């Protein structure tokens, strides 16, 4: 047994980010988390390190992380790390953490990060905040965040402005409640962070060139692995997974004058957002979409980040299935359509004219990020 003690807070320093790769390619979340990690490391006055595990040659991908703000990247290469495996990754990561002791450790809340994070936190005896959407160290920044994003009366509360704990904020109860979690007695403070939420820095080649690559020593053998990955299959087409989807573009009877064209527009918009297509019962009853697409009281209840309703009136039975979406956008040619009562953003117009322009505008906004 090592003499690692997660309660010895003073022994820990630096902010680390787990940098996930699939097939040797870095994931977009890596750059988002490195960018956020940079802010946190600056607030704490410490270094920011990426931690990259992969097959032989993965080192060549590491320097790019410097361009987004990493001072150092710790690279662990082994054929056993080429494809994600819980046992192999958890062992290497925990061993390296026990040796080098970072004070904060961020992981992307991908399907892999949410498999890995809890296993490591349990082994290290520390806390893990799940699926965070906001992170602060600095108390003044945190207060400002609460002012903008909560109904709390921050001025009537007492604040310890010297508090250096990582404040990790996350939605729970399907987004009805937000909680800020701290891990005051153990290190590292660990968080999985929701993909797509943290803003990516502008890539800086000079910083990438200056980024230091370190190869910590680690032990890993075949006998450490208790599961075998037989194959990794990429989905040819996204399955219609309304409940799990972050973005849903739904169509209603408003597409009736050109059903095929309307569905095609919805598919294009969903593709741009990385989401799926849904529909009101009117579209299912008319046979335009199959039943698995139905949103509403007798269909599916969904809580996506964004729900776009194209040509849907907003009947109570439809609202019942989508009103808890985080952001609702409605396009309808009738400005008194009830859907506008619950929409965060409404556009009164013809969906066949508006949707193509919206697709272009969102493409442009995403490209500019």
């Amino acid at each position, binding site marked *: 047994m090592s003499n690692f003690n997660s309660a010895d807070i003073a022994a820990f320093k630096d902010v680390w980010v787990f940098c996930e790769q699939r097939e040797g390619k870095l994931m977009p979340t890596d750059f988002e988390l490195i960018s956020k990690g940079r802010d946190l490391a600056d607030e704490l006055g410490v270094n920011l390190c990426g931690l990259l595990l992969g097959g032989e040659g993965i080192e060549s991908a590491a320097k790019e992380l410097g361009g987004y703000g990493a001072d150092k990247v710790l690279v662990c290469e082994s054929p056993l790390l080429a494809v994600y495996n819980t046992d192999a990754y958890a062992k290497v990561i925990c061993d390296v953490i026990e040796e080098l002791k970072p004070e904060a450790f961020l992981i992307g809340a991908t399907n892999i990060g949410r498999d890995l994070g809890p296993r490591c936190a349990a082994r290290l005896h520390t806390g893990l905040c*799940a699926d965070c959407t906001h992170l602060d160290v600095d108390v003044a920044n945190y207060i400002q965040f*609460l002012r903008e994003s909560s*109904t709390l009366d921050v001025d009537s509360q007492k604040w310890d402005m010297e508090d250096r704990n990582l404040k990790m904020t996350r939605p729970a109860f*399907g987004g009805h409640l937000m909680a800020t979690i701290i891990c005051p007695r153990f290190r590292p403070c660990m968080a999985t962070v929701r993909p797509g939420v943290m803003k990516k820095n502008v890539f800086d080649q000079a910083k990438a060139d200056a980024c230091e690559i370190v190869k910590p020593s680690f032990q890993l053998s075949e006998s450490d692995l208790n599961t075998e990955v*037989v194959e990794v299959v990429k*989905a040819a087409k996204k399955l219609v997974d309304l409940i799990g989807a972050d973005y849903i573009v739904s169509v209603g009877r408003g597409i009736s004058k050109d059903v095929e064209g309307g569905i095609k527009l919805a598919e294009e918009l969903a593709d741009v957002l990385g989401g799926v297509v849904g529909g009101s019962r009117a579209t299912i009853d008319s046979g335009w979409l199959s039943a698995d697409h139905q949103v509403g009281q007798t269909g599916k*209840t969904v809580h996506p980040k*964004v729900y776009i309703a194209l040509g849907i009136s907003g009947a109570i039975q439809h609202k019942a299935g989508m009103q808890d979406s985080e952001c609702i956008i409605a396009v309808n040619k009738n400005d008194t359509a009830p859907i506008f009562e619950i929409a965060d953003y409404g556009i009164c117009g013809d969906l066949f004219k508006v949707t193509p322009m*919206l697709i272009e505008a969102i493409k442009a906004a995403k490209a500019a990020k």
Partner: protein
Amino acid sequence: MKIIVSIKQVPDTSGKVAVNPDGTLNRASMQTITNPDDMNALEAALKIKDATGCKVVVVTMGPPPAAGMLREALAMGADEAVLVSAREFGGSDTYATSQILAAAINKIGVEADDIVMCGRQAIDGDTAQVGPQIAEKLHLPQVTYAADIQKDGDTITVKRMLEDGYMTIKVKTPCLITCIKELNEPRYMSVGGVFEAYGKPMTTYDYEALKDDPLIDATTIGLKGSPTNIFKSFTPPQKGAGMMLEGADKATCEKLADILAKKHII
């Protein structure tokens, strides 16, 4: 052979969610249900029972009324139920929760050909952490996000979902699997099942029953043993009546895209 299924009673967040003025959840005003993913885990276990005749044990940690949910699981076809309930266990975060559930599962006993099943994620806490953390505490291999499970002797083949596809993973028993809704369609309780449920064994593990397990320690369970604390909880500002954008032209769409980008929604 047996399958231990860890199930949680949760408030039904699909309907109206009531929040108290102080930002806490008004649980009293809400219906409770069995966590949806856990229903898929139970169904997966019952399918294996149908095929092999193995035993299915359901376990939950929660207040005494959670016994009602366990009865429903027995009525669906589970053979035994264990309620883990004690004041000392209250206020646990996922680290402490998995510590306690692992101790309970140890007491039920995990043998060479057994499987432990969990849901991927509970709809209230929403962390998806308890399954992997139980696996770590029990030193079991884990496979999360299971969308298909095939059992052949002591080898389990799992279709493990990724955002952009899936992995096929082979693992030997004993192991822990977390289940997602794509796995199956949970069965209903049958009339006969409801009748039989009252004859099936239901045991309660209190603090006394588990305190000798090395995992149970005042410093690792309950509110005091939880590494994470809730620093603040709050409700997001109420949704306004919404905002009608002016016009329906290119500029309107660009304005909307810009707002969404600035708010990190896209």
